[in-house]
């Protein structure tokens, strides 16, 4: 794990007069949250391993504005969006990959009208395409035969209709995929979306992440697979809340793939 990772920036590419194949949009969680940073690094290892010519914006990246928009602050959202679009258009960005479904959704769906037109992929979609192009090899390894359930992120699944890419990757890891009762189109939210991540929930009789974690635990998984840094945090907290952290771990699919091949 000590092997160094290569993370070039767009500015460096620009200085060399080159264009990367894809921009890796790291996102706020991926940049600052301790748990999510591990996902970021796992994904970078996969990119390095597959020899993908990518770059990040680094300090030129700023929040997409998703939490602001969903909290009702359309001004702040559009300020953020236009700032980011200005930066990306200056670099003539064409294709973007991100490990955060919220960034994915916002850039893909809400930036075009504001002047930002890019091909945007969620990291599970991107990894799937690397796989089918033969650039990345995924083998069962450690996860072969393990009982795993997958939690659909709302902003990847319902919001954008992508249910298969993450499942295909899990299939490649030869896991025993067990679905929760509410999955795919009916998948239950982890409780983080719509800016809920950043505030206390309204009064009720349960936290949403606990409800979802209980459902996940019903499938008796060894691992709960996630595809979103916020879901990851919510479910990790849920597993802790249920005193199950010794038996069940929450992992991003990118981490699982990197782990399987000991990257």
């Amino acid at each position: 794990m000590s092997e160094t990772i290569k993370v070039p920036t767009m500015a460096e590419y620009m200085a060399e007069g080159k264009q990367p194949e894809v921009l890796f949009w790291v996102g706020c969680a991926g940049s600052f949250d301790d748990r999510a940073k591990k996902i970021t690094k796992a994904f970078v290892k996969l990119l390095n391993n597959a020899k993908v010519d990518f770059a990040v914006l680094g300090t030129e990246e700023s929040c997409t504005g998703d939490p602001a928009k969903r909290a009702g602050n359309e001004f702040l959202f559009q300020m953020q969006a236009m700032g980011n679009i200005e930066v990306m258009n200056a670099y003539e960005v064409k294709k973007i990959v991100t490990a955060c479904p919220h960034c994915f959704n916002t850039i893909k769906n809400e930036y075009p009208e504001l002047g930002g037109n890019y091909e945007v992929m969620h990291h599970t979609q991107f990894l799937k395409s690397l796989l089918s192009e033969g650039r990345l090899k995924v083998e069962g390894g450690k996860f072969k035969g393990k009982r795993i359930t997958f939690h659909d992120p709302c902003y990847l699944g319902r919001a954008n209709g992508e249910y298969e890419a993450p499942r295909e990757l899990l299939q490649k890891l030869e896991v025993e995929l067990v679905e929760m009762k509410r999955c795919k189109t009916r998948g239950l939210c982890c409780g983080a979306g719509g800016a809920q991540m950043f505030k206390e929930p309204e009064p009720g009789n349960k936290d949403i992440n606990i409800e979802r974690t209980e459902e996940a635990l019903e499938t008796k998984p060894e691992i709960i697979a996630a595809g979103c840094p916020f879901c990851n945090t919510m479910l990790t907290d849920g597993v802790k809340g249920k005193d199950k952290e010794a038996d069940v771990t929450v992992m991003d699919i990118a981490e699982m793939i990197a782990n399987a091949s000991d990257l």
Partner: protein
Amino acid sequence: MQYIPNILFLILLAAGIGYFTMNIRKVIRNIKLGTDFDASDRKGERWGNVVRIAMGQSKMVKRPISGLLHIIVYVGFIIINIEVLEIIIDGILGTHRIFAPLGAMYDVLIATFEILAFLVLVGVIVFWTRRNIQKIKRFWNPEMKGWPKNDANYILYFEMVLMVLFLTMNGADLQLQNLGSAHYTKAGMFPISGLLAPIFENFSEATLIFIERTAWWLHIIGILIFLNYLYFSKHLHIMLAFPNVYFGRVEPKGKFKNNEAVTNEVKLMMDPSADPYAAPAEGAEAPAKFGASDVMDLNQIQLLNAYTCTECGRCTSECPANITGKKLSPRKIMMDTRDRLEEVGKNIDTNGEFKPDGKQLLDDYITREELWACTSCNACVEACPVSIDPLSIIMEMRQYLVMEQSAAPNELNVTMTNIENNGAPWPFNQMDRLNWKNEV
């Protein structure tokens, strides 16, 4: 004198249809109180949705039991309407079973109506049981108290009575046909009402005629009353579901509308060469307000959504906030919007135009606590069998709270300040954004 029944019938028919038309025009007027929208795109996909979701009930069958029963009642309702056509023509012309010359075809039609009527009756009884005996949770949420609960049951009673009248009418008719009664030509096949024969066997011809006529009149009067009941009821969906699905969202569910008025202002702010004192460009006029606090701020599709809501609660039963005991219920958002819109409509009826009544959708109907509980997960939008989007109303009301009233929960204010200052929802420096690269 012999034309009295015909005249009576015509008066009833005209009154029934007239009053209904008047109310539907009110619905249209109220919907037009909303802001304009553009749904001229993707026509093929929209029609496809009408065929699949509205006609084909593709979302209903996601819950197989209620879905199947609903299809029976819906198909029964539509097909039995062919019989209503015959009843209307008979009523106007004073004829009896005017379609009888269709012969074998008529037999098949009547037999089909009868079987469907029976199935509808069974379906409706099961529906009633599910609501009142089995007490399925989604029919017992707080917003279902009082009128909404009664409304649902009234509809079921109406349908039961109509089906029973229809079968009684046919049963008596069959008996009269067998007796060779003058006016009652031999026509039709009666697989269900034929079973009622033992009841009618010993009745005199006069009694049978009385039963048949009474059932016939009550049946058509019942239909006209039911038609007029729609306007006051969630049953309005039997008509509005079709346009509503057509206008339903075709974009990815995650794509929330960008507020254009904001776009213009932000562009102005970000453009260093813009003259802040310049007259606003044409069409770039700032709106009266950002976001929505009352029904007039919503768009016409959202208002059509409110009138279309069937109050089925499928949205609410999938809502993570509601499931975990929060006050938010997407169904209630739609019911409140309709109630407020009706209130505004009545205000216009009395005053000729809307006179401010010191009330609005926000706070008087929908509380802030409900609005802030939403995770924007789209489960409600996905679940709705008639393509209603409660989430868009929630988001526009949040916009009003934040941009007009600066009334976001405090933690969110902190989050937004962070985004504004640091480009992240947490208090980290943007210059540290790539530090992870060197951390082990």
